[in-house]
């Protein structure tokens, strides 16, 4: 970890061109590239099928769709004119080069933790390690009043904490590295911390789990990680590397994307550091699951049983059992659903989302989605069957919630509240004007 924090003299680096770089400059760019992977810039700033970092990726938020910007060093369409100071301000304070403000879909509240050295490295990478793309991507246009970007100034005043990370001398190097990553570049709390109604993270509930509208980012505090099915540091590190862990966990949805694009490409030491920070006291390792030659397919498929299946179980057998086995035992490396950590959450949303969308790792075996072949009632039925029968959970999902998940989640109350607020303000204003006119009329 220490080797990634070399000392550089910042000013001399900027003059170098892409081709004639000093070894120091190349090293800085390489380091910046790594940091960009850790920060997962590409998840938002690289659109599928388009040039890296050229923006245009749609981020569906409860307030509307936000499109990522072009952060290639293009002068017309990207950040080619940014000084390092401007770049740092965008990263840490959400300030664009023209002085306008970024929406916190850009996790600048987390990137505020970045050290100056890391900012320099990132700047070097984005200026000299990325190909400029002169195409302006689709622009964000949130509905009024959220189109007023200056309102972000007030929001930042209320909620943003832009202090650079300060190491804790009482903790180990690994813990500090983990803290720096989790609080900063890998911006875990952006998803895993619940937000208040003004969409700011609730600091008192750090990493305690939050809904992203559709997928649910679970509680990853140490307390939660030590509950059943519990995590060890090794499991966490494995999960970040591969999306799978020995306690049966498998990543899906946005976390799988984070694993594929970011965590799997980080160093094993950094993943261990993250695990150390999240689990300051490691749990005892569980006995390794017996390596099976072949998981037998087992279950009751006698005619009388088949006649009496509940809707959920029937759907499960017909749609899921060929990979997950008749009672969710899993099959030879295809995941078991019995006691799967996803079943032990306060909501069943992730199960329903996996069923709706499927699970699509970049490499390796995927799971097909069923949004086209099962309706809301069916998805609710099979989700509830899995939650109850294989997870022993009382948490259920309704068909209405499945319908909302299909649509991208419930709308934020913020929209309605702001519009009510605005409506009230307009009415008050109109009444005021009438009153003023009346007064004037009376005077004259």
């Amino acid at each position: 970890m220490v080797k990634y924090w070399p000392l550089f003299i910042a000013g001399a680096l900027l003059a170098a061109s892409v081709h004639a770089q000093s070894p120091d400059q190349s090293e800085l760019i390489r380091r910046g590239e790594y940091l960009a992977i850790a920060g997962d810039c590409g998840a938002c700033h690289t659109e599928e099928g388009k040039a890296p970092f050229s923006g245009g990726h749609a981020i569906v938020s409860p307030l509307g769709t936000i499109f990522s910007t072009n952060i290639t060093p293009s002068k017309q369409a990207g950040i080619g004119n940014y000084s390092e100071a401007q770049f740092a301000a965008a990263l840490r304070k959400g300030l664009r080069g023209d002085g306008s403000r970024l929406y916190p879909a850009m996790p600048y509240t987390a990137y505020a933790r970045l050290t100056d050295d890391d900012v320099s490295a990132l700047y070097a990478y984005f200026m000299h390690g990325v190909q400029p793309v002169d195409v302006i991507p689709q622009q964000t246009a949130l509905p009024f009043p959220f189109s007023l970007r200056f309102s972000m100034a007030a929001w930042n005043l209320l909620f943003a904490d832009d202090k650079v990370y300060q190491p804790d001398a009482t903790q180990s190097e690994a813990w500090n590295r983990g803290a720096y990553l989790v609080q900063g570049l890998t911006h875990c709390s952006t998803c895993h911390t619940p937000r208040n109604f003004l969409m700011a993270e609730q600091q008192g509930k750090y990493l305690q789990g939050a809904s992203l509208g559709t997928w649910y980012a679970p509680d990853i505090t140490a307390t939660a990680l030590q509950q059943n099915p519990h995590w060890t540091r090794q499991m966490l590190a494995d999960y970040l590397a591969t999306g799978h862990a020995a306690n049966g966990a498998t990543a899906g949805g946005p976390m799988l994307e984070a694993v594929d694009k970011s965590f799997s490409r980080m160093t094993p030491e950094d993943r261990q550091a993250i695990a150390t920070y999240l689990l300051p006291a490691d749990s005892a390792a569980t006995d390794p699951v017996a390596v099976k030659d072949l998981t037998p397919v087992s279950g009751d498929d006698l005619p009388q049983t088949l006649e009496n299946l509940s809707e959920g179980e029937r759907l499960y057998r017909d749609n899921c059992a060929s990979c997950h086995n008749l009672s969710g035992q899993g099959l030879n490396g295809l995941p078991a659903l019995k006691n799967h950590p996803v079943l032990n959450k306060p909501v069943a949303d992730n199960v329903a989302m996996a069923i709706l969308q499927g699970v699509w790792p970049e490499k390796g075996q995927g799971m097909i989605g069923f949004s086209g072949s099962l309706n809301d009632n069916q998805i609710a039925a099979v989700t509830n069957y899995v939650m109850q029968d294989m997870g022993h959970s009382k948490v259920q999902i309704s068909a209405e919630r499945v319908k909302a998940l299909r649509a991208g989640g419930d709308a934020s109350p913020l929209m309605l509240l702001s519009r009510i607020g605005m409506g009230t303000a307009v009415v008050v204003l109109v009444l005021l004007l009438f009153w003023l006119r009346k007064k004037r009329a009376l005077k004259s």
Partner: protein
Amino acid sequence: MNNNKSADVVVIGAGVNGSLLATRLAKAGKTVLLLESGPKVGRDQLVERFRASAFKSDFMSPYPFSPLAPQPRYTPEPNDYLQQAGPHPFAAQYIRMFGGTSWHWAAQLWRFVPNDFRQHSQYGVGKDWPIGYDDLEEYYYQAEVIAGVGGSPDNGSPRSKPYPMDRVPASWLQQRITSRLAPDFTVLDDSTGRNSRSFDGRPACCGNNNCMPVCPIDAQYHGGIAAQQAENSGVQVVTEAVVYQLEHDAQGRITAANYYDWNKVSHRVTAETFVLAANAIETPKLLLMSASDKFLQGIANTRDNVGRNLCDHPAISVTFDVDEEIWPGRGPVSPCSIGQFRDGDFRREHSPFRIDISNASQVAAVTKEVLAEGYFGKKLQDEIRFRAARRLSIKNALEQLPDPNNRVTLSSNKDALGLPTPSLYWDINDYVVKGTAKTQACYDAIAARLGATNIRHSKTGKFSNRQHITGTLSMGLDPATSVTDQWGRAHDHQNLFMVGTGVMPTVGTCNVTLTAMALALRTADKILQETQHG
């Protein structure tokens, strides 16, 4: 859409070829109505029906049957749908359902070899096609991209671009057989539409070994996927619509199609262009049923070619127990084959053939075999396990030359809707018989190389059907001997096109669907080109 027509184009038959054509037309802005005689059934229902079936070796058993859109069935007993009028029964098997017959295949998607298109000029037998390999090459590639096809590139079919899908890893069985048969026999990866990565919203194969009759996870491409894509592309699909008649005007333009819904209510639809895609038996049946005062022999049939030149790949098979444990049943069902007998000067004398090596689980088959031999107790267990581990099942695909006497006609029987059922006359000639002798020699050589015991050949003189049904709507340059032109357009009717394997004038040396898919895309382009000016 204008002129109060039901759609710009009416397509009859929602199998893979009709669906591909419909999708291409819809994406180009045409309004398309796709009529399917059978129902739409979900994959999960098919899986359920398969698991609870008492006839698992019959690949049709998961598929629903209705007397309103009947099809040939062989279990629990053969039904009377097809009348067999010839010396060899043509035991056709097809599905009348949204997605069609390729629901239950192993996704074998081969290109012809170039000489398949010109066997007459090259070898003095059979027929030449009105087009050549080069005319179809780009369409072969388009079809491969849609289906996600991968395989061994050195298989006799030249390629301008590599396969769009990486190969599916070979099972232990395939590795061992390949290694032990070399150098006399070269075992290739089959060209298949089977995912080796996530593609098209479908996951990679995870070895359900159930390609036939149904893949539980749609890791393989099939007509059901094509039909769904058609629907998703804006094609209007009507299922349970049995077309029974085509209407025409005085000039011979097709003006309407009449169909029964499953309540036996008749409906009439109109269009500028009509495309028949109801398979190589049902489309001729429809054409013959549509006889009128002007066209006494049926639509597209002034020269009496509809239904003639019925071909399949007759097949003989062998099973034996190899001298080492290879365990078929792990991975896809049809992964590999021997293609070195597909082409060569010998085609002057005898039929070429492909040899398919099965990887389907043999557990059920050997269980029946051992039980029939009277074993019981521990010996029964030992024998089943011994044979299940070593059983190799091989069959071939022999090229049959087109013979106008082999044909589809209408029988005098009627189905539940009062429509005539098909009658098939099929014979096998010397060209094929000589090919079987050569095949058997290969089988014996293969068995010898594998130290085989318990060798059982299929019955001499008997052939099974591979269901690669061609010829009945043959395309050709000469209307005197063909039904359609090189675009699949009926010689007799300007606005009537046909797609599917029926338009193929020869059956070639490999499974026929990819060729039919390529032709369907080419026909779609032709329709677009002709109708783009209003």
